[in-house]
């Protein structure tokens, strides 16, 4: 089947030309977006400048690097919440027993995965985000103080399963204290 060329009137022709121009630009943009994720070349980086705002505005600025370059460890946020009466609770984000349905759990999981996705140079940003999470948890729990820890859940090789281990063995969790949040400090 052949499409009918819009040769009936000048404005249809103009529209046709504009649509084609946009089409070429759009195709280039959606290909440059993932290509510009580091490591990349100077050429692609310079191209990114030409498409950046368009991609940001249309929410097409994605790399589609799913499970790449390698499926990484999970990152969790553990907390110990202290209450004014001296009692405390321990919890973690995400928690599949609390956050249901699965999509809701996944939303929380992405919060901590975002922390892990930040480069090491973005320490300050990571601390700021973790602090905002901490204040949110403290507010949710009505806690006076919150001790936050970042937990890296290491992925074990399959040989470990054959050796009698499990993917959730306690020693596969590496806990790093992050910060203490005083709710009154805000």
């Amino acid at each position, binding site marked *: 089947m052949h*499409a009918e060329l819009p040769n009936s009137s000048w404005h249809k022709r103009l529209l046709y030309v504009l649509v084609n121009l946009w089409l070429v630009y759009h195709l280039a943009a959606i290909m440059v977006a993932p290509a510009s994720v580091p490591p990349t070349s100077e050429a692609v980086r310079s191209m990114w400048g030409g498409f950046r705002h368009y991609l940001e505005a249309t929410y097409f600025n994605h790399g589609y690097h799913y499970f790449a*370059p390698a499926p990484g460890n999970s990152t*969790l946020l553990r907390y110990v919440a202290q209450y004014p009466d001296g009692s405390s609770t321990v919890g973690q984000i995400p928690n599949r027993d609390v956050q249901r349905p699965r999509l809701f759990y996944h939303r929380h999981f992405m919060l901590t995965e975002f922390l892990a996705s930040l480069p090491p140079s973005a320490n300050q*940003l990571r601390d700021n985000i973790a602090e905002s999470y901490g204040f949110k948890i403290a507010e949710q729990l009505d806690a006076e103080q919150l001790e936050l820890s970042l937990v890296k859940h290491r992925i*074990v090789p399959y040989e*470990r399963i054959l050796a009698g281990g499990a993917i959730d063995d306690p020693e596969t969790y590496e806990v790093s*204290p992050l910060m203490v949040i005083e709710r009154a400090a805000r």
Partner: protein
Amino acid sequence: MRGPQQLTADVSDAWQRFWFAPSDPLPLGVMRILLGAMLFYSHLIWSLDLIGFFGASGWNNAGIIKSLQQDTLAWSLWWFVPTGAEYQFHVGCLIVLFLFWIGFATRATSILAWIITVSYAHRSMLSNFGLDQVNAMLAFYLMLAPCGARLSFDSWWRKRKKIAVTPSASATLAARLIQVHICVIYVWAGLSKLQGSAWWTGDAIWQVIANYEYQSADLTWLANYPTVLQLATHGLLLFEITFPFLVFHRRLRPLAFAIGIALHLGIGAFLGMWTFGLIMICGYLAFFNADEIRSAGNALVAFVARVGRVQAEVALPEEKQPQVRNGIRLALPAPDQPADQELHDPNSAPGEGRRPIAANETASLPQVAPQPEWDASASSAHVLTNGSPRSRRRFVADELLYVARSKQQRANVRAYFRRHDMACCVLRGAAELIERTVNLRKATIVLRAKDFSRTELQFWCDELAETNPQGQFRIFLLPDSTQRNTTEGLEVPPRIRLFRLSATTTLRRIRKLYVNQDWNATPSADDDSIPPAANTIRAAKFMSWLFILLVLTGCGAKKNTPKVQLERARMLLERGQLHDSVQAFTTALSQANGSADDYYDRGVAYERLKQLEQAAADYTEALRLAPMHSQALNNRAVVLAQMGRVEDALLDLSQAIEINPNDALAWGNRGLARHESGAFAEAIDDYSHAIELTQEPRLYFQRGNVYVDFDRPQQAVEDFSAAIDLDKDFVRAYLNRANAFVQLGKLDEAVADMQKASQMDSEVSMTGAIQQLRQQIRGEQWQDTAAAGLAQWLKTEGYEIRPAQDESLSPFMLVGDSGHDAGAACFISPTGPRGAPVFEVSLSEKLVGFEGQVALLVVDKQELIRSDRMPSADRPAWLKDWRFDWKPVESDFVPSQVEVLLGPPADSLSTEQ
């Protein structure tokens, strides 16, 4: 040979056809329903904690999101929602998404749906993932197309108004853009994986399914089949990178869909991301045309009806267009019809005999179309399916005519169709064809392009139309190897439909086209239609069997291999079962050549067992295998230092630094070694270097210790303070800073640090804090000066200096405690309610005029509970009666001991400022 002008024209034509050839928007209608459902659900989920995720101080903190989106064009309607109106806005968005879902005012709601999707995604950027990306992508493209023209409230309304749905160029444009975008997603998902070693070693799939936080079904049993995992890893990578080639290749397309659907269903079932998996599968619909969607829908409806034994008449959307009617109607047979009753196809040609059709085999029989114009709905159900589960034999209602000039070809065709128990009339030429079709109502004709020129073809089509003015014909044209388009420019009446098949079309394909015929299909210039969904299912079945075969045959892992034993050894090491770990390492290393890491890990186990010689030997072996193993160098240096070989340790650490000048651990360890060897200045330099590389509290702490030994308490206090700033719970930093404060003569600060340390860590308090405080109050550094004077004064006053039980109880400082004779120095008794809250301390009059420092320690079970120093201003009162309120947490608390200690006056200290 084509000239540049022709080439340009061809390219332009191909571009035009690819992007803008009008098509039925039915696939986009189906996609709108699925996407609308997904958008509605995924946004509804936000309601569970709307303020939590979208509030100013929620998970997606407004300040942080704004700073992250600074200097970008990321926008969101959420920024205009006033506080307190979040739920109203959210409900409004949900209503719009619902309207989009049902296809109400779709032109407007599709645009609003995209705006809403992007608004939510930009505002909640910390909690987004692939689902939001694909949602927004599909919403964007559907916004460009008439996605509400079918299967919608709008289409129902138009139908009432008798407004026809016409093929749309924008529908093609949107579908093509979705196709291309999905290809971009797959290709980049694959290419980005090439950067990771796990995708090359074949471990990646295992790492995905062994991720506990993603896992929604336990697949760790696959550890027994590492070959399957590795093949799946390589296969997935290959699939993602080659997806565009697979999906745009007609024959490979079912394979692409089978793998893709299996992949995304797997993501849903095993990683818990059903939403993402399903929306990706939804995107596949863009690769189907309207006819295929209808066929699939019919097959699905027939399947459901057959399974449920439902007696119903089910109709897919039927559009009453002025010229083209695409509806397909299926009807199940009446239940009271005998199963073996034979029906006859009314569309079968006179004189050709009647084809037997089982009554329970199929949908309704097609109606004869007496009108001269083509009527699709009247001839829609020609494929009569045998309902018997054992038989898949199909009968068709029209004639199959195959024209082939080659005798061999005719024989092949005849044999093939005979083998499949199907009637096929094989003819030698077009003249026979015309003769044969004179009385036929319907016929499917297969011609080979190389047998006809375009002019001949036009001639025979005219003949066909003229000799049989009421017949309906479908011509499958097989092009020759040059792929020349002999159908271009042909003028045929609507009742003769031309399908130009690809040059590689097989008899099997022709048979399937004939049997699974869809007379409503719009003839296309090149038959790039997707093979039936059955092929996709068949490909999926094939893969499943392949998987089962791999699992069952020879892919099982052995459990006693050295690699497994080494992993077991590491597991035991992590669990602190050091002896077993060493044994497992030794067994494994005796069976296979170990790597540097294996020897290194065993060295760690030996080191923790304090078997320093063996540890050093293993580190040495690790270094022999990997001379640049800086961790082994570090650890060997630590072991050597513990063995007293500080010089050797320094050599190792210097080498580690040479290998990696940015190794902060090596710099820090060399600082430690130099500290131990007494090279304070060099140690401080090393620590300073390490601190430049990494701001670790431990490094500040250790440099502070060097400053203490280097008689620079002020710098020491600064370093300990820096360590405390970085780690508020660094108990030893508090203790050592207290020590440095003592050196500076700042006892108030020292005692405050001690108290802080004792509050934070009871273990440290028991073993260190009391002793250190006692020592500081006692003032070891005073012993040579002021302390000697104090001791002399106490003796002069008649105190009997008791021998100390341990070093901490200095004989000349402890002047009284709760267990001591009151007459000697003091009397301490609990006088409050239940004997706890208030202590009264009376001191001997001999202490009148004492100018030194006085401290009170309240101790329970060797733990410092509280310490107070008497301010000098209160001294006169204190001499008579020292009372202080004691407010323990438990009202019946009784300390095991209360001690009063004396020290020289603070101004008697000689400290270096």
